[in-house]
């Protein structure tokens, strides 16, 4: 096994997170940990609070209670733009691409934190502005090749089919070379082939770069195949947490979510 894939210690913990919107309790005192290099899946019925959990982790939502611990650092209030600086990247359930920009530009934007050139250098396309642009473009082309979207790289993403948009969004997240990647239903609405491609991308990234992943997915086949670790949410509460096998045999999970078929 690839040494980078050797699962390490817990690097991300959510502790006692409670989040509500007015009267709606999206999360009630949820705690779990994600270990370095693992693929952790969050599953649960619709409205269980899965997306909200990711939004808490990368600072889009601010929980009323609880905190995060990331690489030993206790974070009471995460801010969205800070999460990127911690090396946490993200894709969204409802694709959140920059619709008017090309696939290339979307992915290039993912590297914004690595840009060192100043605004003035950019206005003159001078010095670092030029060399950086070319260097980043090279990295982005590698991502484009990896995701097999060469043919659409210059098309405004708003005009791409859904499956390709999902890939571009993954590309934008990868461009940041993240330590932790949060994927909100990356395969929703895809056909079998597209799902297989996406699974391959996720596994390859995890394997090659050792990127820690937190994944939300409804397809149990995919979850069982990919995950090292599964967390089950139901009505905002964590009802189970363990290996895929443990989850499959957990009576409470079967009752709440998997049903008899699984």
């Amino acid at each position, binding site marked *: 096994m690839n040494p980078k894939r050797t699962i390490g210690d817990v690097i991300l913990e959510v502790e006692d997170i409670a989040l509500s919107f007015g009267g709606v309790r999206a999360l009630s005192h949820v705690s779990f940990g994600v270990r370095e290099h693992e693929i952790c899946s969050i599953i649960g019925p619709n409205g269980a609070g899965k997306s909200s959990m990711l939004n808490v982790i990368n*600072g*889009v939502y601010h929980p009323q209670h609880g905190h995060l611990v990331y690489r030993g650092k206790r974070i009471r209030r995460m801010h969205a*733009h800070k999460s990127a*600086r911690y090396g946490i990247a993200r894709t969204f359930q409802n694709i959140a691409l920059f619709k008017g*920009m090309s696939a290339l530009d979307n992915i290039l934007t993912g590297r*914004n934190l690595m840009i060192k*050139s100043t605004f003035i250098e*950019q206005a*003159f396309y001078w010095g670092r502005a030029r060399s950086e642009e070319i260097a980043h*473009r090279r990295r982005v082309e590698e991502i484009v090749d990896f995701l097999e979207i060469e043919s659409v790289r210059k098309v405004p993403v708003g005009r791409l089919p859904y499956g390709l948009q999902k890939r571009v969004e993954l590309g934008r997240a990868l461009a940041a070379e993240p330590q932790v990647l949060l994927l909100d239903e990356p395969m929703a609405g895809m056909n079998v082939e597209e799902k297989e491609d996406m699974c391959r991308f996720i596994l390859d990234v995890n394997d090659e770069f050792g990127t820690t992943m937190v994944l939300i997915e409804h397809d149990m086949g995919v979850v069982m195949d990919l995950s090292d670790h599964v967390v089950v949410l139901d009505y905002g509460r964590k009802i189970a947490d363990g290996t895929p096998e443990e989850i499959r045999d957990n009576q409470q999970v079967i009752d709440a979510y998997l049903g008899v078929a699984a």
Partner: protein
Amino acid sequence: MIYRECGQFKTSYGSDQAIFPIPQDRWGVMLALLIAFMVIPAIANEYWLGVILTPFLILALAALGLNILTGYCGQLSLGSAAFMAVGAFAAYNFELRLPGIPLLLDFVLAGLVAAGVGIIFGIPSLRIKGFYLAVATLAAQFFIEWSLTKFGWFSNYSSSGVITAQKMVILGYDFDTPLRKYLLVLSIVSVLALMAKNLVRSETGRAWMAVRDMDVAAEVIGIRIMKTKLMAFAVSSFYCGVAGALWAFAYLGTVDAQTFDLHRSFQILFMIIVGGMGSILGSFIGAAFIVLMPIFINLSAHALFGNAIRPDLLSNMELIVFGGLIIFFLIVEPLGLARLWQIAKEKLRLWPFPH
């Protein structure tokens, strides 16, 4: 030679990231510059230079400024003319109070003052969006117009609030004829347009567009929304400010705060609607369209009806055609003439094999 992208393999990312990656585009720009700098001065008369082309270029610069803010960064503004006013009055005051200041430095400082004011009036954009932001910029329009009239200091206590721009001299060379003014304006506008093109294709521009298209996602990938929006306000106002200074110095000569009223702001907004949101070229096309259309209507009406047509009817006709076009573009092609041009180019690019 036809316009196309296929068949031209780029050998490096450097050349593909160049400012105009497609040679025909590069030649097109060269040709336009050649015509603007060499051909027009040779053939255009003083009327065309001084009354049509110079104001067209200046308005294109202001439209470019607004396009950066609205087209690229997605922040609607109805205050462009007010920032032009700031630029005009600032340039006048720098000349007045720092005699002998180099002209170009004066224009840059005027732009910077406008940028500063732009940042202040951009602060509401951090909280409010769309329609409400437009109303806030409307407040900027009225407030600036009012202060420039109210406080005599800005116009050096001239009784009517009118300022008379100083002579334009660079290194002893007097820009006093319509041709010289045109060439000066053309040079400044070309350089600023090139810089804008560079900005929008680099990280700054991508951040603007990211905030425009999906601000939550932009923040999640590390873009600072506040910095990005205020930067757009600053750069946009800088462009409008320089345009205002040129309006006073190179076009009208004497201006007051009312020269830059709400009507002017709307005119600039219409330019980017017709020309194309989020397009540098569109700013020029839109300005050309709106400056030239009344002339065109006038000429064709006279050709059709002779002198029988009443002038008030004519000006109403302008308004009707204008309103119709705005509605057309808002509904049918929000990306304006520049987009129609781009579609034509895309067709050519793949022609004759569409797939």
